[in-house]
């Protein structure tokens, strides 16, 4: 066998069901009941409107930097819809739509972006991890959770998100490889939104697809039209079922687009053209799904109007709750450092508490209260005088 082509066990498929032009592949169309189709559309719209509201709050200085999701609603909701509340969701920093679906109150998210760690207190009962900012570093956590679920005899699967840029990080590689070796039930959901800040997908890696990277770890990778919620869901459900049945991990690359800024600190005009954005606006996942529902007679203009009203009210209420919940008491910073505060930290807390009370003439700053020195108690001949 001098020179032979090896047969690799997996291939890379591309999946699209509801085309950008509205054509539908009815063979592949997943069966989703009407109520759920309505819930999904509502979730998409809520995510879009909440994103807009956040941008607005950020511009007013009422919250800080955040990462908008406009354009990626289908990738997020199509995938998160495929897991159950008993499953786990491990986000990066751009999954507001998925988080809302999982039950995060909007005010928590706002609180977080307003600089309050309280915002990342995952709601009880929600099996999510908080936002992770270091790119790709959440992926091993997803693998650990998945392994632990199996170890505990629990059939939960773990859905974890990351971007196209994240695939270049060492942690992506190490996590994917661990998942393959452990057969851990993880769905690696890549939102390839074409850009990692200013770096285009093409400069991120030479591989033709991101999905094919899964082959390096011995499990399947599928590329889907990420603006097609039906395709995202179909691929995700398949991966979830496979993982739940002991088939191990899978990777899904959602080909999508970030229609807005990378974060509110970014100016995309510096690195991409208006035309490119326009091009992708025509593939907007929200309008595409709306058309689908309209064709199915599940949505009309009046319903749409009422939905918008409801959502506007919901968001307004959340913003009000958010404003009411901002309590800048800094002493909480000492609360979740360790399970039990060590003496030094307790001293630091007291120091700050005293400073806040304004008592005491300038307490020892940032220092444990010094024990009263017993002057002259010990002396040494080396001290002259």
């Amino acid at each position, binding site marked *: 066998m001098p020179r032979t082509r090896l047969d690799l066990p997996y291939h890379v498929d591309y999946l699209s069901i509801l085309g950008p032009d509205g054509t539908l592949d009815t063979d592949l169309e997943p069966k989703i009941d009407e109520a759920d189709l309505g819930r999904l559309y509502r979730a998409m719209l809520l995510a879009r409107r909440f994103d807009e509201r956040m941008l607005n709050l950020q511009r007013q200085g009422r919250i800080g930097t955040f990462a908008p999701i406009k354009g990626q609603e289908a990738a997020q909701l199509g995938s998160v819809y495929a897991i159950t509340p008993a499953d786990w969701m491990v986000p990066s920093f751009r999954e507001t739509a998925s988080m809302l679906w999982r039950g995060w109150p909007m005010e928590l998210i706002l609180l977080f972006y307003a600089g309050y*760690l*309280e915002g*990342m*207190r*995952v709601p*009880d009962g929600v099996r999510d*991890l*908080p936002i*992770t900012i*270091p790119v790709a*570093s959440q*992926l*091993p*956590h*997803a*693998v*650990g*959770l*998945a*392994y*632990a*679920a199996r*170890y*505990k005899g629990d059939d939960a699967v773990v859905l974890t998100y990351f971007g196209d840029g994240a695939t270049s990080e*060492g*942690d992506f590689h*190490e*996590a994917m*490889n*661990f998942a393959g*070796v*452990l057969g851990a039930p993880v769905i690696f959901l890549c939102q390839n939104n074409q850009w990692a800040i200013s770096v285009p997908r093409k400069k991120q890696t030479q591989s033709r697809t991101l999905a094919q990277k899964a082959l390096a770890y011995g499990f399947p990778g599928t590329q889907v039209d990420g603006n097609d919620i039906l395709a995202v869901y179909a691929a995700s459900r398949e991966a979830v079922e496979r993982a739940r049945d002991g088939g191990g991990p899978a990777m899904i690359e959602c080909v999508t687009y970030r229609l807005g800024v990378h974060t509110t600190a970014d100016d995309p005009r510096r690195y991409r053209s208006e035309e490119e954005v326009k091009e992708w606006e025509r593939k907007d996942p929200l309008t595409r799904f709306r058309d689908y529902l309209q064709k199915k007679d599940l949505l009309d203009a009046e319903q749409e109007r009422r939905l918008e009203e409801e959502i506007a009210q919901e968001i307004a209420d959340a913003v009000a709750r958010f404003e009411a919940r901002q309590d800048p008491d800094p002493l909480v910073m000492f*609360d*979740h*450092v*360790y*399970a039990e505060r*060590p*003496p*030094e*930290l307790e001293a630091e807390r007291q120091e700050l508490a005293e400073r806040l009370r304004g008592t005491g003439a300038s307490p020892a700053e940032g*220092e*444990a209260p*010094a*024990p009263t*020195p*017993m*002057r002259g*108690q*010990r002396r*040494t001949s*080396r*001290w002259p005088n």
Partner: protein
Amino acid sequence: MAKLNMVGALNLALHQEMARDEDVIVLGEDVGVDGGVFRVTDGLYQKFGPQRVMDSPLAESAIVGTSIGMAFYGLKPVSEIQFSGSSFQSFPQIENHAGRYRMRSQGRYHCQIVVRMPCGGGVRALEHHSESEEAYYAHHPALKVVIPSTPRNARALLVSAIRDPDPVIFLEPKALYHAVREEVPDEEETVPLGRARIAREGRDLTLIAYGAMMRPVLEAAEVLRDEDGAEAEVVDLLTLSPLDRETLAASVRKTGRAVVVHEAPRSFGAGAEIAASLVEQAFLYLEAPIRRVTAYDVPFVGFAREKANLPGVDRILGAARETLRF
């Protein structure tokens, strides 16, 4: 009760904790079939099976990163980094996550993990196999950094570390792995983390050290008594962070003089914090400057020259005498 070396004592701790609590699992490179390159995990694979004792791929970031994920589910992973010299590969996971998750999630999640790693020199090892990295870990808030000095306290500290709800970096001075045997009781023993121990009482001078440096320090203390008639108090930190400042300050308030000894390079090392803390808490009692006896500020020297670089009895004695005579 058996006479065990430190490897045996750590192995006992792991065997007993794994038997006691099935949430305790072990993972790392070569920890399973091979029993760890230093044999600390010997027999665990055979006893507890591959689900609980995992030979992982060669990837330190994922070893700690998956441990963190497991901890969120209620497991208590004890991972091994084969040498502390490869622990920086997992430093982002430790710094960005293990030491922050309780805070980030406001108490919803925490990382009950132990990351074990052999550290320090004295074993004729190649580069990256004899370094001392404790100061890097100690500077990060919300971690605990533990370093035993004898078989018995190693066993008790490891048990305490495994049960501690916070992430513990457990440094094992590899020079001590086979150095001595000590009676280690079969029955469970724990030691509260965060407390230093007075390894020797004295009134003339405080010698402060931890890990493998305890041996030359205790030897130096004997010489000081025999040759100089000076009684050194010796503090063995056991936990480097959070630092037991109270015990340190109490000793130096009594003796007025202190020498800190460690294997890591001096600048910005753990000795600096100890000295600074003593100045803050015992200034008026200090009768001499606090001296540091440490490795030099060089990255690595090769084992042929390691002895000249690491503190030994002579150098400790020199600094102690200077301090006594100041």
